[in-house]
């Protein structure tokens, strides 16, 4: 994609907020609800500056009552409004899970398509800063497993904006999962990469389209979120060793861009799936199964999975470092499948 030299580079949080503000300006039915989203501007800067322009009626701080306000967003959406509700940490999902997977996700189906739920549920995911077992989970698989909600995960500012526009305009509930480490927070430095050039005008990144972040011939590394950046770093190391890795950023889990994955696997014959979520019953299993079911003849080695162990996330630094996959783990896995 060619970028205008004049295009500004912005953080991922800025890009998200840009899209939200634009949609709110254009449609009075769009509003934002969540804990500490108005006066604070979002603990992870997800709503920074919105209060000044839109006021407390449209950028609503809510009581610590996740069941009530996420359920209320569902109800408002069923009335045709376009609410965005923020669950501060994805770990808090358990408090309000019924409203998400039995209400938000199922009303369309249960009503035989008579009702739609055009809302966005935003939530912060991810570890890397020692916030321990109840504030560091990723839970991609939990949302993606339960039918009825679209699930998107941006890895950079350009996608963050385009996916937010697409999510707000979508007539279905979209879960928008943003990684804390990518937001560009002053107190949590981001890796190189998520801050990108972002067009001023609005545009959509279509929900359900993966992106080839780096083309390669020897192995497909399929991932999303923070681990896109770790995979790209691994690809550089691999290149030094003569292994040409292709890196795919899924960007959407539901719908999953199966064709992009299969195209890549058919080309390279080798697959590594990288996920910050737990290993078992999740994304890595799903994508490995897809490749073995539909590209078996093209596979030259069994797929490798790099994911978090089936262990609650530990607090102490050496333990969390052991728990979370880094670039070296990804490169090791790629080396194993290309051996």
């Amino acid at each position, binding site marked *: 994609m060619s970028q205008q030299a004049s295009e500004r580079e912005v953080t991922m949080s800025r890009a998200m907020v840009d899209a939200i503000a634009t949609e709110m300006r254009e449609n009075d039915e769009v509003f934002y609800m969540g804990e500490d989203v108005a006066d604070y501007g979002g603990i992870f800067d997800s709503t920074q500056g919105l209060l000044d322009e839109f006021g407390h009626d449209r950028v609503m701080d809510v009581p610590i009552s996740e069941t009530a306000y996420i359920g209320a967003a569902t109800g408002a959406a069923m009335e045709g409004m376009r609410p965005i509700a923020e669950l501060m940490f994805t770990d808090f999902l358990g408090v309000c899970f019924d409203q998400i997977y039995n209400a938000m996700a199922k009303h369309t189906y249960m009503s035989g398509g008579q009702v739609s739920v055009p809302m966005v549920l935003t939530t912060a995911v991810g570890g890397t800063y020692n916030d321990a077992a109840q504030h560091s989970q990723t839970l991609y698989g939990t949302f993606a497993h339960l039918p009825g909600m679209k699930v998107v995960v941006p890895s950079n500012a350009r996608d963050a904006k385009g996916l937010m526009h697409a999510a707000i305009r979508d007539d279905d509930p979209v879960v928008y999962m943003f990684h804390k480490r990518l937001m560009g927070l002053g107190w949590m430095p981001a890796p190189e990469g998520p801050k990108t050039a972002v067009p001023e005008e609005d545009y959509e990144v279509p929900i359900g389209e993966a992106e080839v972040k780096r083309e390669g011939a020897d192995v497909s590394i399929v991932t999303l979120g923070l681990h896109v950046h770790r995979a790209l770093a691994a690809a550089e190391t691999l290149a030094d060793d003569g292994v040409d890795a292709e890196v795919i950023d899924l960007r959407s889990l539901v719908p999953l861009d199966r064709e992009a994955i299969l195209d890549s696997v058919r080309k390279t014959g080798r697959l590594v799936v990288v996920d910050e979520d737990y290993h078992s019953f999740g994304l890595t299993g799903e994508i490995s199964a897809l490749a073995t079911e539909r590209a078996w003849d093209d596979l030259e080695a069994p797929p490798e999975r790099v994911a978090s*162990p089936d262990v609650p996330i530990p607090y102490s630094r050496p333990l969390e470092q052991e728990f979370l996959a880094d670039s070296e783990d990804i490169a090791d896995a790629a080396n194993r499948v290309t051996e």
Partner: protein
Amino acid sequence: MLTADTMRDLYDDVVTARYYEERLQEEYLEGKQPAFDISAGPIPGELHLAAGHEAAGAGVCAHLRDDDTVTAPHRPHHVAIAKGVDLEKMTAEIFGRETGLCSGKGGHMHLYDPDVNFACSGIIAQGCPPAVGAGLAAKKRNTDAVAVSYLGEGAIDQGGFFESLNFAAVHDLPVVFVVEDNDWAISMPQERVTDVENAADRAGGFDLPGERVEFDDVCAVYEAAEDAVGRARSGNGPTLLSVQVHRRMGHFMGDAEAYRPDEDVERAQNLDCIPRLEDDLRQAGVSDDELMEIREAAEQRVDDAIEWAKDQPEPAPEATYEDVFSNPPQGRPMAAEQGGDE
């Protein structure tokens, strides 16, 4: 008026907790200044300090025994100290060390000390139902143990809290719910999220007594808790107690509190339970020298715990895979085998 001995004990608790928070703040900020980077410094992760909450910890826990259960929220240190949690091991846990209360796995929001039946959690109001469960166990076993669940005033809008009040009331369980009302739920002042000024009013509708202690006066909290804990211990069911406390720092370390008016920060600084208790102690005939002695001993204890904790080893990476189950299934968790070491 409480006896001088009782007040001395309370004083010991509150000054220990206050000094502990001040020292943790110092340690936490090491390496995180001038630019705050949450990943730097000797204490990992988020840190929520409780300076200004001490009266609620000391005044209630003074009535508890080791076999009474306490569940605390994400701001747990003052309650832990008052409940008698091992100070050295707690500190080592906060520093993420192997010899910490939870072998470095829990961290400051997830401290467990089964020796004194203490637990805490990082999810708002999560401790309410387990406290009800501890009360249920005591009732079923016909013991006179009680359970105390601490929560913030922001948590009184949470479903788990309402359901717990109802369950405890219906079954006349020996539970005391203690709301620490510091007026702020992160950036949210109470009046913008709750239409009752007095959290104890939440008891209405559940057929249980609700009582408010207006000032963070340790002696007043002690007296209110004496009734509430006594009621629970004698089989007369749950109580909801709300205690006015004050948040002397941001919600978490690094919170610049841009949303909070300066007057409110000042107000919280001026309404301090410690000088108030010192006045009461002096009136009871306790000399300033004696107060100084108690403070110095408390400070020494805290300094020793911090020094000890900092000397402790970090856990070995392999420990990541231990403790997922008490009765582990055969084999290692799948991803432990990543890296081709099978």
